[in-house]
């Protein structure tokens, strides 16, 4: 163990695979957070995205269609959230809980009706994203194995984090999103409907979470498993909470969680029971939450 393990190319390769879904989902969550939409249904958004990715990829025969379908599925969830939370004035927490259950039920239901299988669907017809080899990047030590040869979705996720930072600071919609989250009455007074702005936030969030699902089902592997999101949506929620929706901090936290995830995956080989490694990401999240909350409390109490 120790430094050798951390510098092991196989380990480094796995880090982006773990962090990408969390990063994409957390960026989506960050947009909602900044826009004042308390969306804790990321888990459900990702799950639907993962399923739709397989659906699109399998039937259209291309991973790109898989990604498009995943985004469409995520956006669909976003629109449902908007319909029930914004238009019908449902409490965001209630709507989130319901949508998470809805996603869990719907994906299994469709898995069984469309593909006629239970548990998992794997088929050679599912086309997945493969790694992109970037010659210049490849040869840099440590960073090379870490960053090179990942799926396009990883590079997109990192780009999205940086772009989002600029978007919030300088884009019209970004500005309005922040206003919707801070003082929506100010938007109404200026003639802009805050709910419309929040609808956009949910659409963007849905698309990003859809891609997070695509990374799980057609980039990390080429299959769909029931409840495939497995708590990553909640980890993303924590990442949003800890960073208050600041994109660059989200990127940082996602990298941190990615390391812990792949570390725990890695040490499975050292004879520890699987449950210990399975629980590590959640414990890490909990510890991060405790440490940062305590720090924040000591600053403001």
């Amino acid at each position, binding site marked *: 163990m120790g430094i050798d393990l951390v510098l092991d190319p196989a380990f480094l390769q796995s880090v982006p695979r773990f962090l990408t879904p969390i990063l994409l989902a957390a960026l989506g969550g960050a947009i909602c957070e900044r826009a004042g939409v308390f969306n804790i249904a990321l888990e459900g958004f990702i799950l639907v995205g993962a399923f739709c990715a397989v659906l699109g990829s399998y039937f259209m025969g291309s991973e790109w269609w898989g990604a498009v379908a995943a985004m469409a599925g995520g956006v669909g969830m976003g629109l449902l959230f908007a319909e029930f939370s914004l238009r019908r004035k449902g409490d965001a927490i209630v709507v989130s809980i319901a949508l998470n259950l809805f996603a869990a039920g719907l994906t299994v239901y469709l898995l069984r009706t469309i593909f006629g299988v239970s548990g998992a669907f794997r088929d050679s017809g599912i086309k997945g994203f493969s790694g992109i080899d970037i010659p210049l990047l490849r040869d840099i030590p440590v960073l090379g194995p870490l960053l090179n040869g990942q799926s396009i979705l990883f590079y997109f996720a990192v780009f999205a984090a940086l772009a989002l930072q600029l978007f919030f600071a300088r884009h019209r919609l970004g500005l309005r999103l922040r206003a919707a989250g801070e*003082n929506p009455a100010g938007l109404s007074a*200026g*003639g802009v409907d805050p709910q419309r702005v929040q609808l956009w936030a949910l659409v963007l969030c849905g698309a990003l979470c859809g891609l997070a699902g695509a990374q799980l089902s057609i980039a990390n592997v080429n299959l769909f498993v029931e409840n495939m999101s497995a708590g990553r949506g909640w980890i993303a929620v924590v990442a949003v909470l800890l960073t208050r929706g600041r994109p660059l901090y989200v990127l940082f936290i996602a990298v941190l969680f990615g390391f812990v995830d792949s570390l725990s995956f890695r040490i499975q080989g050292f004879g520890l029971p699987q449950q210990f490694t399975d629980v590590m990401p959640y414990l890490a999240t909990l510890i991060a939450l405790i440490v940062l909350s305590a720090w924040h409390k000591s600053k403001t109490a």
Partner: protein
Amino acid sequence: MQVDLSGVTVRFGTLTAVDNVSLHFSPGEIHAVVGENGAGKSTVMNVLFGLIKPAVGTIAIDGAEMQWRNPQDAIARGLGMVHQHFMLQDSMSVLENIVLCSEPVSNLGFVKFNTARARLREIAETYGIGVNPEKRIADLSVTERQIVEILKVLYRDAALLILDEPTAVLTPQEAASLFQILRNFRASGKSIALITHKLDEVMEIADRVSVMRAGKLISTKPIGETSKAEIARGIIGGELPASLTRATQAVGEVVLAVDGLQARGVGKTVGPVSFDVRRGEIVGIAGISGNGQTQIIEALVGLRATTGGQASLLGHTLRGLDVGARRALGMSYIPADRQRVGLALEAKVSENAAIGREGTKAFRNWLFIKRAAMTSFARELIESYHIKVAGPNARTSSMSGGNKQKLIVGRELSRGTPLIIAENPTWGVDIGAIDFIHRELIRMRDAGHAILLVSTELDEVLALSDRILVLYENQIAGEFAAADADRLAIGELMTSRSKVVQVA
């Protein structure tokens, strides 16, 4: 630009908030619209601005009838509104706030901040007002925020400015400089609609005054053809309540002693402050909101940790005591925010009335609560404090603001504790309720209770207090005895002498 509202009626459910009101606004004129809280002034202005659709009635600009779908339409036609509550984004810069909702953008939707900055500079030069565009709203004083709101309207080229209670948060001096700005606007040919309930302001600056009461327009007259007394009668539909009388009385022992108290505030420490409140006196704390009042009150009540100094109640130190223990020791508290802190709106009136008493013998039988006792207690409060409500089991949210406030005042004063802390006890309620609450506070004072009154309404502090402390930037800036309290001198101490605003 001539703007006409004709025959406007607004209904909320079964309530008619505005009933057949017509108003006319001309260029180069300041038109004041006055009335009590709830008289419908703000509702009329929201109609004019496109925030509310009237059930009946029309808006016309230069004779052409307009249909507003939303405020954007009204803004496009040259209307601008400065709302009673600031509509600013605290975490954003001045510039971001000013462009928000009318951003100049490039093709991809990115905001052209440089264009906006140049335009803002131009406006600032034209009218002689300006604020550093890069500053965050959170770091601005109340006056500066007011200026930002006005700049926002000017940025959109408004020809009619609607100002809803613009001086509510200003000191007399600041109000005077605001009026100077308004006079400049008038001179440059803009129309100004000034919503207010302060008659002195109306007499000072308005050219024309419209009086509203209970949703109806009572009169519209040029200022020269009316008088302060006539307007006042129009507002309340009768004579003003007799002015308050306070017999001077000898004060007793110290009830609350505050010694070098410090608490954490927004960004910096509040205090140290030292003062005491004795039996039989009302000590008023004046100051513009945000100068540390909330923190000091919360620290005294036990809602906020103190970071230094100490306070004692009847000689017992308050250190380490929680809210419940302090109240048991002899403290009552009328909070500023009746909607969230003063009441549980979704609970019954009786449940709100009994809060804090549920542990006492009268209301508790072993584990069980005595519902009957709660109901009859609530009924007593309703009677003795003249609270208008369907009954003890009515939902609290069904009451009007004034009656909610009376319920809180009744609940707290009926405890009969030696110390009463009242924070903006009459904020946003009608004249009847204001008068009633003021008289109750004076009655408690006469009965020998110690009262600490915090109010951002300088008139309220002046009317009730035996001694006045002025709070400025988290410190006590001065103290006055009631006899030699002077509005302007107090206003001077309350004023944030900021360098950022330059008024020509």
